[in-house]
């Protein structure tokens, strides 16, 4: 690519679009927003095409000392590349999803979304720890407005909860970052990743970062902001939340917690496993009894994210690759599921499951696509989530078969709540007349769901396209973790009485 600062351009395009949208009327703002996101998608494709697999670890680097105290440093590895691709792929879809649903204050709405895109790309591309923090935190402002201004009935409570929860999570991380920079003498993330922090300090640093990423992830028991935020946010807001914002937590673990504090990560593996096991089972069961479609999908997100954390803290290549694949797959699938909910919400203005039923009769195309995404969410082979879940669970199985066992039940429970949802909404008798009268997908909705469906199948059938750019980086991370990785429990498992799962989770301190 020569010296072309493509990452900066990808930040500038939506930023300019956002500023323009503030001054434009509804119609023009929609066009500008769509144009900006499509340009960024094109730039993202160029970025991927030019990414040199097997080349340098950090590519497309930019470094400018414009601020004192931290630098404007950008650069991506394969992991960041994939997450940036996810963001730029979902953004035009979000704009499209809001095309008709948002009718008041369109300019400001589009501006907030474009700003979110800037911040998300920035977070994934930032190579300076403080630049990362600033962009990471800045996302609170547009998201607060998106939920609060354009959200549903109970939007104000949800907006507060989202804002304060995530803020409380991340301020402690800032203190940890300040300490690290003071200790290591650099703000450059690649250097910090190679710096060996003292073991006793790692514990505190890890906990501070964990406080932030666990909330973003979100992990049980700090997940409670998510269902509220999801339910109240407009459809596109939910897509962005589930699709990309939740990935910030996982990305944070991969970029910071694991490589920077490998020993502490290993020490706290039991904590993450324990919380994840509870999350998988508990939130799946909660999802099973939801009457609100969005809430159901929100809880299912928590369960999926728990498998991500288990994969991350398996300390082996399969686990890490699996975690990344779930993040990508879940970003697509949960985004698509929220869109599916949005499609029927736009028609009937309710998310209550019991208000629908028998949609397969009047909306066959919708039913087909919804089925695809339902199956993908369950993790059917041939879809994106299967690859990720299989790898992640295979990874954790090598380390701790009990954790693997409990987490695998999540797949079964996932099938239960998703199929139950699908049956109630799409199959059965048409008891509600207004639901029965709903028209099938419009062209716009085809254009929204079609690309995601294609991507989901691509990722399921040929995951190598997505794994290849990340392979070297994950290998590197695995090497970094190798010394600290916990021993496998395989040799101890044989012949021992099975301890109760929860006790095992709490009691096993390495």
């Amino acid at each position, binding site marked *: 690519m020569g010296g072309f600062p493509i990452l900066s351009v990808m930040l500038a395009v939506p930023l300019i679009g956002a500023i323009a949208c503030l001054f434009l009327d509804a119609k023009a703002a929609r066009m500008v927003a769509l144009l900006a996101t499509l340009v960024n998608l094109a730039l993202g494709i160029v970025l991927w095409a030019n990414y040199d697999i097997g080349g340098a670890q950090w590519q497309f680097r930019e470094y400018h000392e414009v*601020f004192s105290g931290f630098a404007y440093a950008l650069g991506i590895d394969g992991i960041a590349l994939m997450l940036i691709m996810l963001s730029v792929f979902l953004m035009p879809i979000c704009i499209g999803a809001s095309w008709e649903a948002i009718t008041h204050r369109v300019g400001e709405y589009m501006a907030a979304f474009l700003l979110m895109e800037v911040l998300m790309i920035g977070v994934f591309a930032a190579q300076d720890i403080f630049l990362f923090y600033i962009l990471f935190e800045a996302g609170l*402002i547009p998201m607060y*407005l998106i939920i609060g201004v354009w959200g549903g009935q109970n939007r104000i409570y949800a907006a507060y909860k989202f*804002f304060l929860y995530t803020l409380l999570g991340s301020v402690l991380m800032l203190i940890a970052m*300040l300490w690290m920079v003071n200790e290591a003498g650099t703000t450059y993330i690649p250097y910090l990743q190679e710096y060996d922090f003292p073991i006793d300090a790692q514990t505190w640093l890890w906990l501070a970062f964990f406080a932030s990423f666990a909330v973003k992830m979100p992990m049980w028991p700090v997940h409670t902001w998510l269902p509220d935020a999801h339910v109240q946010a407009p459809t596109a807001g939910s897509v962005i939340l589930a699709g990309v914002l939740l990935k910030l937590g996982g990305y944070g673990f991969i970029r910071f917690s694991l490589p920077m504090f490998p020993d502490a990560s290993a020490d706290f593996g039991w904590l993450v496993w324990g919380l994840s096991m509870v999350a998988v089972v508990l939130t799946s069961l909660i999802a099973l009894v939801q009457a609100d479609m969005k809430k159901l999908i929100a809880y299912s997100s928590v369960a999926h994210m728990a498998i991500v954390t288990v994969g991350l803290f398996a300390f082996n290549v399969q686990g890490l690759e699996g975690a990344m694949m779930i993040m990508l797959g879940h970003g697509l699938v949960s985004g698509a599921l929220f869109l599916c909910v949005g499609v029927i919400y736009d028609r009937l203005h309710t998310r209550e499951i019991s208000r629908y039923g028998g949609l397969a009769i009047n909306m066959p195309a919708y039913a087909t696509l919804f089925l695809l995404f339902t199956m993908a969410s369950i993790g059917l082979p041939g879809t994106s989530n299967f690859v990720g879940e299989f790898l992640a669970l295979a990874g954790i199985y090598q380390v701790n078969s009990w954790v693997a066992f409990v987490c695998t039940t999540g797949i079964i429970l996932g099938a239960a709540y998703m199929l139950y949802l699908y049956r109630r909404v799409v199959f059965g008798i048409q008891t509600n007349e207004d639901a029965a009268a709903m028209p099938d997908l419009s062209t716009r909705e085809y254009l929204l769901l079609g690309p995601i469906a294609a991507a989901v199948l691509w990722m399921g059938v040929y995951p190598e396209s997505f794994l290849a750019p990340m392979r070297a980086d994950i290998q590197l991370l695995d090497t970094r973790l190798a010394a600290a990785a916990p021993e496998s429990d395989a040799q101890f498992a044989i012949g021992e009485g099975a301890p109760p799962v929860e006790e095992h989770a709490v009691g096993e301190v390495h």
Partner: protein
Amino acid sequence: MDYATSLGLLAPELVLALSGLVLLLVAAWGGDESARVNSIAGAIALGGAFALSLSAVVDGASGLDTFAFFGQFRADAFAGLAKLMIFASSIAVLMIAPRYFERIGAMRAEFPVLVVFAALGMAIMVSAGDLLSLYIGLELNSLAAYVLASILRDEERSAEAGLKYFVLGALASGILLFGISLTYGFAGTTNYTGIAVAVADGLSTGQLFGLTFVLAGLAFKISAAPFHMWTPDVYEGAPTPVTAFFASAPKVAAIALLARVSLEAFGTQADAWRQIVIFAALLSIVIGALGAIGQDNVKRLLAYSSINNVGFILIGLAAGTVGGASAMMVYLVIYVVMTLGSFVAVLLMRDAEGRPVEGVSDLAGLSTTRPVLAWCLLALMFSLAGIPPLFGFWGKFVVFQAAVQADLIALAAIGIAASVIGAFYYIKIVKVMFFDDPVDTVKGESDVPHWVLLGLCALFVSPLGYLLIAPLDNVADLAAASLAVIP
């Protein structure tokens, strides 16, 4: 040291003193018709003083060359930077006040004179190298401020604010003076350098008492908890331009003064005052945050917000290092801009008849009725809450960085966690403006100077402010380095 050199170092103060006296005569003979002219002349005099203080800041003046009158007075970079902030906010107040007072028919010719004298007092405060010159500056500023608070003679709230300010301020001055006399009794001198020598081997009980009373008196002036009680009442009662003045310039002066006393006179005994400062800092953060939650008056809310911010500034002081002093100055610069911006926004809130509107609930739906004002306030509120990418974040960032570098990690962690409580009421204002249905109370026409000032402040706290980090850090470092004694 001859007197000519000393007087040369006093140039900004001399300009202010002389022009203050001339303006007083003009006001006395010209009556209230001369108010406009007086305001402009006052602003020009302050501008002159600003220009005269500039060189010390840029050059990083420090050392014996900056000592005037045998160490009674110092014109170093630290004082210079504080003076720039003081003069700039005084000019801003002179810019915004006339329109406000004219609207209610209460513009008086003595208003600019009082502002000039208050600024003079503050300049002496920050330059004082001796506890007695400190006291003279403080009283000059305070006496002018008491009158300013009650300048609306016919209004009950204004008179009440003035009286409260006077009674409690006098009490604080008494405490301060008591501390000064104790320090003098046990250290044998009132000069900072002399005190630093006297306490170098540790504090005697008498000196410790002196230090404590001095700090208590100064905590009063900067409205740090637990001496903050006067702040909400005075801020609410005083006319809004005067409140903007109180929240900016005297805060800078008192904080700079506190830093100088702590770091220069008692710099070797940092452990003795650090716990007091930490206590006041954390209490201010928490009380400032909790107190603001229930407020419906924007000015009261901003009063609590200023208490909250003082807490963060004190964290920088608690570090007790050059870095901490530099962080304080950076925070102060950002704080002054955010505060002025917020109060200008309050000034812009007027109902259809032009009467000031001060309720938080009157802001409801402002984003649809007055979008520009709402967006500016949004930027200011998120900035005050310290949410990046707004510039207010950088102020918090540097003070916490200083605390971490001084190994006060627990303080930093508790302080920043408590800042989340504060975020609640800032985002509440945003919620009222953006999420609630419009009430359309704020519809009065507004004045150009106010818009200009608000625009400048909003621009400063926007992410563009980050481009100023390098020069800001530079002057703050020079200023901090010029403080004479820091271990």
